[in-house]
C-alpha cells in the first residue's frame, strides 16, 4: 500500500479539504433530503389539502397494500439488472476491441462517445421515431432486408416493449462503460502482455485470467454508480412508453415522480422515495461487501 499521511499534529487538514464538499451537501442537499423524509410522515396531497398534517407511518402502511408499488419495484429491479449487465458486457467487449492497436483507433474512440453526448430530450424522441410502427426506421430497414414481412409494433407489443425500451437505454449507456474500462485497460503494464505471450496464454486466457481481475475495482464502482443512475432515470422510458402498456414499463422512480410532481401527492410520493432510498442503500452495502471492493487481489 502507498503511504498515507498519518493523523498527527495536522489532523485538521483533511477536514479543511472536505469543507467545500460538506458545504455544498449541507447547503443544497441536506434540507431537501430531510424534507423528503419529513413529508413521508405527512398527509400532503394538493387535491386533499384539508387533510394536511402528520400521519405517522400511514403512508408506508398504504404502500404495502399498493400493488402498483410492488409491480414498479419489480420493473425497476429488472430494468437495473438488464441495463447494467448488458451495458457492462457490451461496453467491456467494445473496450477490449478498442484497446487493440489498429488504424483509425482514435476516430472509433470518438464515435463511441457520441450516444453519451447527445441531449436526453433528443435521444428519447429519436428512438421513438426509430421504433414507430409505421413511419419508423427500424421496420423499414428490416422489411427492406427481408427480415420482417409486416410492421412490428415495438413499443405496443407486450412481448417487445420492455426489450425495445431497454435497447435504447443500452445504446445510451455503453459509452460510459466502454470509456471507463478502456482507460483502465490501458493502465495495465505492457510487460504483463508480453509475459502472457511468453507463457503461451491464448487471447481469451489473457483477458479472463489477467486483465479482468485487474479491472475488478473499476467494474465494481462503475456498475454501482450506473445501477443507481439507471434506477433513478426515467426520461427515456417516459417518452417511449409512458410506463405502459399496463404498468409493464413503470419503474418505481417513474411512479414516484408522477405521484408527487404531476399529481401533487407529495406525502405518498415521499414515502416511495424513502423506501427507494433504503432499497438503494441496502443494495449498495450488500454489493460492496459481497464484491469485496477495495480488497487487494491475490
Amino acid at each position, binding site marked *: 500500500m502507498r*503511504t498515507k499521511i498519518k493523523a498527527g499534529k495536522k489532523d485538521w487538514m483533511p477536514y479543511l479539504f472536505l469543507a467545500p464538499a460538506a458545504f455544498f451537501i449541507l*447547503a*443544497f*442537499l441536506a434540507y431537501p433530503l430531510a424534507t423528503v423524509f419529513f413529508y413521508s410522515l405527512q398527509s400532503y396531497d394538493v387535491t386533499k389539502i384539508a387533510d394536511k398534517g402528520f400521519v405517522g407511518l400511514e403512508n408506508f402502511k398504504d404502500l404495502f397494500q399498493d400493488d402498483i408499488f410492488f409491480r414498479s419495484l419489480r420493473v425497476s429491479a429488472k430494468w437495473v439488472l438488464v441495463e447494467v449487465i448488458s451495458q457492462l458486457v457490451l461496453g467491456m467487449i467494445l473496450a477490449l476491441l478498442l484497446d487493440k492497436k489498429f488504424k483509425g483507433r482514435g476516430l472509433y474512440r470518438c*464515435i463511441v462517445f457520441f450516444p453519451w453526448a447527445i*441531449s*436526453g430530450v433528443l435521444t428519447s424522441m429519436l428512438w421513438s421515431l426509430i421504433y414507430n410502427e409505421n413511419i419508423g426506421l427500424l421496420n423499414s430497414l428490416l422489411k427492406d432486408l427481408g427480415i420482417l414481412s409486416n410492421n412490428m409494433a415495438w413499443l405496443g407489443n407486450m412481448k417487445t416493449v420492455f426489450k425495445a425500451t431497454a435497447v435504447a437505454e443500452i445504446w445510451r449507456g455503453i459509452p460510459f462503460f466502454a470509456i471507463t474500462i478502456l482507460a483502465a485497460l490501458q493502465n495495465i503494464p505492457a510487460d504483463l502482455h508480453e509475459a502472457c505471450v511468453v507463457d503461451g496464454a491464448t487471447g481469451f486466457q489473457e483477458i479472463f485470467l489477467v486483465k479482468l481481475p485487474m479491472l475488478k475495482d473499476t467494474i465494481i464502482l462503475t456498475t454501482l454508480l450506473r445501477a443507481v443512475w439507471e434506477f433513478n432515470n426515467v426520461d427515456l422510458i417516459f417518452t417511449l412508453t409512458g410506463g405502459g402498456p399496463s404498468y409493464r414499463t413503470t419503474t418505481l422512480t417513474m411512479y414516484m415522480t408522477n405521484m408527487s410532481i404531476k399529481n401533487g401527492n407529495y406525502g405518498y410520493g415521499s414515502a416511495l422515495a424513502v423506501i427507494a432510498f433504503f432499497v438503494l442503500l441496502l443494495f449498495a452495502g450488500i454489493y460492496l461487501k459481497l464484491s469485496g471492493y477495495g480488497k487487494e487481489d491475490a
Partner: protein
Amino acid sequence: MTARKGKKLAGKVGFAALLLVFMVFILLPIYWCLVTSFKPSAEITSKEVTYWPKIFTFVNYAEAWTRSGFSTYFKNSLFIAVFGVVFIVVLSVLTGYALDRFKFKGKNVFMLILLCTQFIPGAMLITPIFIIFKNLNMLNSLFALVLVNTTFHFPFNSILMRGFVGGIDYTIEEAAQIDGCSRLGAIRHVLLPVLKPGIATIAAYGFISCWNEFLFSFMFISKQAKLTLPVGLKNLVGEFSINYGQLAAGAVIAVVPTLILFSYVQKNLVGGLSSGAVKG
C-alpha cells in the same frame, strides 16, 4: 504454419466483424438524427421512409437557430457548463485528494454520504431546493443552476478523482516537501501537473452532465432569455405540433461543443482515466 496463419486471419475477420456490428449499432441512430435534421417536416412523418432526404433542406437549422432562440439558449448553456466544470473540478480535486491521501476519522462515513446523495432522484428535491434559492434571491439566475449542477455531480466525480490521485505516487509530493515546499505548494506545483489527465476527464464528464441537464433548468428559470438548450429543445415538442426536424437540428447544434471538447481531450481522457479507474 498455415493453420496458425488461418487462425490469425479468422481472428482478424472476427475482430473487424465485431467492431462493425458495434459501429452500426452506435452510428445508426446518429445517422438518423442527421438525416432527419435535413428533411422537411412532411418527409419525416411520411409512410415512405427515406434513408436519404428526398428534399435536402437547411431550413431546420436556420429556423432552430433564429426563430427558436437557440443562439441565446446556447450561450446560457455554455455559461452553466463552463462554470459548472470549474466548480466540479475544484471540488472533486479537494475531496478526492482528502479521501485518498489522508487517514482520518469519519472517512468511510463521508464516502457513504457521497454515495447517498445520489439515492433520491432530483425530481423529488425540486421544491425544497427551489425554496432555498428563493430565499437566497437567486431565482432565474444561471449561477444558481451552476451551484445545483455542482451539488449533484461532484460526488460521483470526487469518487473518480480519488482514484486518479491514488494512481499517483505520494513520494513525489513528499520529495517536494522535503525540498521546502508547503503541502499546498506541493499539490500545486507537483501534483496538479501530473493530475492533468484526470482533471480533463472530470471536466469532460462534468461538461456533459451540465450541458444536457434539463429538469432544474426547466424548473428554476422562468425567463425566456435565460432558458438553456435542453429546455429549448423540449419546447419544440408541443401538444399539437412536434417539430422533429428542428429538434434534430437543434440537437446537432447542441452536440457540437461537446464533440469539440472531446476531440481535444480525447487523448488525455483515455490516458487520464486509466490512472484513476484502476484504484477506484
